[in-house]
């Protein structure tokens, strides 16, 4: 492995490592625009110049592979001067419209001008004008004047999605990002170009003009959109709620995880959070009185649900859990079922249309925790439960989240099954056709409103964290279930998601020895700990 010296510090790096990454490993930032670790090296922006001993002039770090004995300097006088010049070149034709630009606050032109520019502008001539506010596709809009032609977006579409929608047209300072004739930027990962665009040239049509980025708070999370479990950040607007008409979740951004999603997420996941602040959100428990569902206090609802579970013999009770529930919820549910001796449990619901899948990230299973539900022992057959309900063998049915009337089964049959049940309990985040039929409706907190873990299809357990407060009186499922358990006479000490997870680790071998700390930010494989191996 080559060992080199950067700014006087020695480091050993893997063969093939370039000087930007080698410096990064030493916490030395070499500023750059066009280089991106997930894309080929373009060497176009010319910002990442460093001095290499014996080289006659500064060299670009992105295209220089570290070699043994190399001596690199990133802060020499001429490197600093070159950076300053390159910053000036990047900005002479830039419109400097930061006050109306969505990227302001997270723009690498702003950041690097302050760090490496700070020259007095000399450009007095008319700038080059290019198209502005050009929609490229459903999610992305282009301002060609702000573009610094780093070609990251082009390389993303060529190399990552291999869809090739974008090109750089014309030449010289008339060069312009654009779509090939007849094309639209509508691949399933198009939103990523907004993330990798270092400037305000590509912005997100959904996020645009919602809120200034400096008002946003971020929480580490996991996308609940499919079984991949891409690592994300949830950006929320707590400080200026009036800026976005009460929309709390401003946007989702990919969070790097080398083992799961690298730098990317798909568009379905990125824009899949609309339900969180949707009008259909349930804000308090409901009880059906005649034809109407009316709000009731939690205590009443818990007592009602516990009463129903006690009144119906276990053999007459069924549960349809959900692979969208967190491990903590599923484990709490399992405790409730064990307490009552309920064994008729289903969880997977056949979707109306089969999920799409590709080789990059997207999985056909649109549930984030199918593997977790299976490991926790809640992986039964939902169709069998519904058949039993139709045959009036199940009299009390608790459904978690699903809208069974919008599934891949004949609606009439499902309606007959639900109609035949005496006590229908439904819990979830948003009202739907199935919840409308329930006697008891329990409002669940959405995944961004609480902590928890999902187990992805490969068996990687990953944490998501609360980003916003729970809406209205909604509670995490584990808490609802904990209260029911207490009402059933089995008080629990688990007052936080983390406690439930610890209990899960004690009871289910696959999770043995795992804690929130050991999972960390990048996840941990089930069965990977010493305790699990022993169990």
């Amino acid at each position, binding site marked *: 492995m080559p060992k080199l010296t950067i700014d006087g510090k020695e480091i050993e790096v893997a063969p093939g490592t370039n000087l930007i990454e080698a410096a990064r490993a030493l916490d030395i930032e070499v500023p750059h625009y066009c280089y991106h670790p997930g894309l080929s*090296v*373009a*060497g*176009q*922006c*010319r*910002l990442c*110049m460093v001095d290499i001993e014996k080289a006659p*002039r*500064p060299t670009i770090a992105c*295209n220089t592979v570290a070699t043994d004995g190399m001596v690199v300097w990133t802060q020499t006088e001429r490197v600093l*001067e*070159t950076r300053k*010049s*390159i910053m*000036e*070149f*990047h900005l*002479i*034709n830039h419109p400097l419209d930061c006050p109306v630009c969505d990227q302001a606050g997270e723009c690498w032109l702003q950041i690097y001008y302050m760090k490496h520019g700070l020259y007095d502008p*000399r*450009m*007095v*001539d*008319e700038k*080059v004008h290019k198209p502005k506010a050009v929609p490229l596709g459903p999610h992305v809009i282009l301002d060609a004047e702000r573009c*610094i*032609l780093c070609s990251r977006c082009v390389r993303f579409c060529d190399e990552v999605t291999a869809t090739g929608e974008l*090109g*750089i047209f*014309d*030449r*010289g*300072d*008339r*060069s312009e990002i654009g779509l090939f004739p007849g094309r639209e930027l509508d691949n399933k990962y198009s939103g990523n170009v907004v993330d990798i665009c270092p400037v305000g040239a590509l912005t997100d049509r959904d996020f645009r003009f919602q809120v200034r980025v400096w008002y946003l708070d971020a929480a580490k999370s996991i996308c609940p959109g499919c079984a991949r479990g891409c690592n994300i950040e949830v950006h929320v607007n707590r400080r200026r709620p009036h800026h976005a008409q009460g929309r709390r979740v401003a946007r989702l951004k990919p969070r790097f995880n080398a083992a799961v999603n690298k730098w990317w997420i798909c568009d379905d996941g990125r824009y899949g959070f609309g339900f969180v602040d949707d009008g259909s959100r349930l804000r308090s428990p409901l009880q059906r009185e005649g034809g109407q569902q009316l709000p009731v206090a939690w205590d009443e609802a818990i007592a009602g649900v516990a009463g129903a579970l006690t009144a119906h013999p276990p053999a007459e009770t069924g549960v349809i859990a959900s692979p969208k529930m967190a491990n903590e919820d599923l484990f709490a549910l399992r405790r409730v079922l064990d307490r009552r001796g309920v064994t008729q449990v289903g969880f997977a619901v056949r979707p109306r249309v089969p999920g799409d899948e590709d080789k990059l990230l997207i999985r056909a299973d649109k549930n984030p925790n199918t593997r977790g539900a299976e490991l926790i022992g809640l992986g039964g057959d939902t169709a069998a439960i519904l058949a039993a309900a139709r045959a009036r063998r199940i009299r009390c049915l608790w459904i978690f989240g699903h809208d069974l009337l919008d599934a891949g089964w004949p609606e009439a049959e499902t309606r007959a099954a639900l109609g035949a049940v005496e006590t229908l309990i439904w819990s979830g985040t948003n009202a739907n056709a199935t919840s409308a039929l329930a006697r008891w409706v329990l409002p669940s907190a959405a995944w961004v409103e609480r902590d928890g873990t999902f187990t992805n299809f490969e068996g990687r357990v990953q944490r998501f964290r609360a980003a916003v407060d729970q809406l209205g009186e909604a509670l995490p499922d584990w808490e609802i279930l904990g209260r029911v358990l207490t009402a059933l006479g089995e008080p629990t000490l688990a007052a936080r998601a983390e406690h439930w997870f610890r209990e899960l680790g004690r009871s289910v071998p696959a999770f043995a020895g795992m804690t929130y700390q050991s999972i960390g930010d990048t996840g941990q494989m089930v069965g990977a700990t010493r305790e699990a191996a022993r169990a």
Partner: protein
Amino acid sequence: MTGERTLTRNFHRPDAHTLAAYRGTGGYTAWEKAQTMEPAAITEEVKKSNLRGLGGAGFPTGMKWSFIPKNHTGPVYLVINADEGEPGTFKDRYLLERDPHALIEGMLIAARAIRSAVGFVYIRGEYVEPWRRFSAAAREATDAGYLGRGFDVVVHRGAGAYICGEETGLISSLEGRKGWPKLKPPFPAIKGAFGAPTIVNNVETICHLPHIINRGAGWFASLGTKTQGGTRMYSVSGRVKRPGVYEASVAITLRQVIYDLAEGVTGNGRLKAVVPGGSSAAILRADEIDVTMDVDGLKNAGTMAGSAGVIVMDETVSIPEALMVVARFYAHESCGQCTPCRESTGWIYKITERIVEGRGRKEDLDTVLDVARRGAGTTICAFYDGAVGPYISYIEKFRDEFEALIPK
């Protein structure tokens, strides 16, 4: 005095472009001889001849060939640069039109030296007649069995971009991509066209090979200077009595080119300035023309031999206007890939235009000089350094002319 003519010796013959005429004057005998030589021996001979690339960079040809990896087993390509885009340069077109078989014979020899089975000839798009003539010659050579037996030639036409003359821009274009120069490393000799080791040589460079093989490296070297052998073709344009293409030794002086070959200055008859090596070469004042035209001679004079496009300006020519025209060219032709080149070529053109229009500012000249110096050496290809040549030299050498146009 100006040396023997070899490349252009048949230019006066109306049928020089035909196989019959070429063979009638000794054509393809060098190829016969080269076939008896080991590839390494050919390269060695070319090294000894001191042949240096005549496309612009002046790189020693034999040395370039020796960069092809020795144990390489896959394809190796020979690419002929016939893009001839450098303003003031028009020699390759004559070679293609009047002596296309010399290029084919030279390609056969070079291909043997580098063990290439396929050669590409990238011809400037505007060169219609040269393309027709060369294509016809390639067909004749195929029918006669010179081509198609271990070495094939593919003709590719450009689409009108100066940057496609830069060797890696050319390779990108040849590969069907936008003609963007490529990052080096890797160098073409290691990883060039379609990922294979590739040698790019100028038309004129290759046309010298038959003579070197036939008459020997010593003879060729003796025609030139200590560090560069042979003759080369000077394209002389601008304010001279007889503009045109002249073949002469690389050792002659710029004065000889202007006054002997082109027979002196027109306009008001008094020389003001001359660009010796195509538009990218730094300009020289009238008192700087006693320099030899070889690569090192002009380099020592602070300019470059480049493509030997000699552009002559008499005293009536406005240097600021000339710079504006040159700046417009570079702004138009920058491929737009590297930030310094893309942005400052346009910027500098705007400034020069403003100066010529009488709207200059007193800080403009220093801004151009500073911007040019700051961008120099920071880009992917030599295009920008080529633009910097005129930006700096025109202003440094004729500053008072610029200042006279700037309102006080």
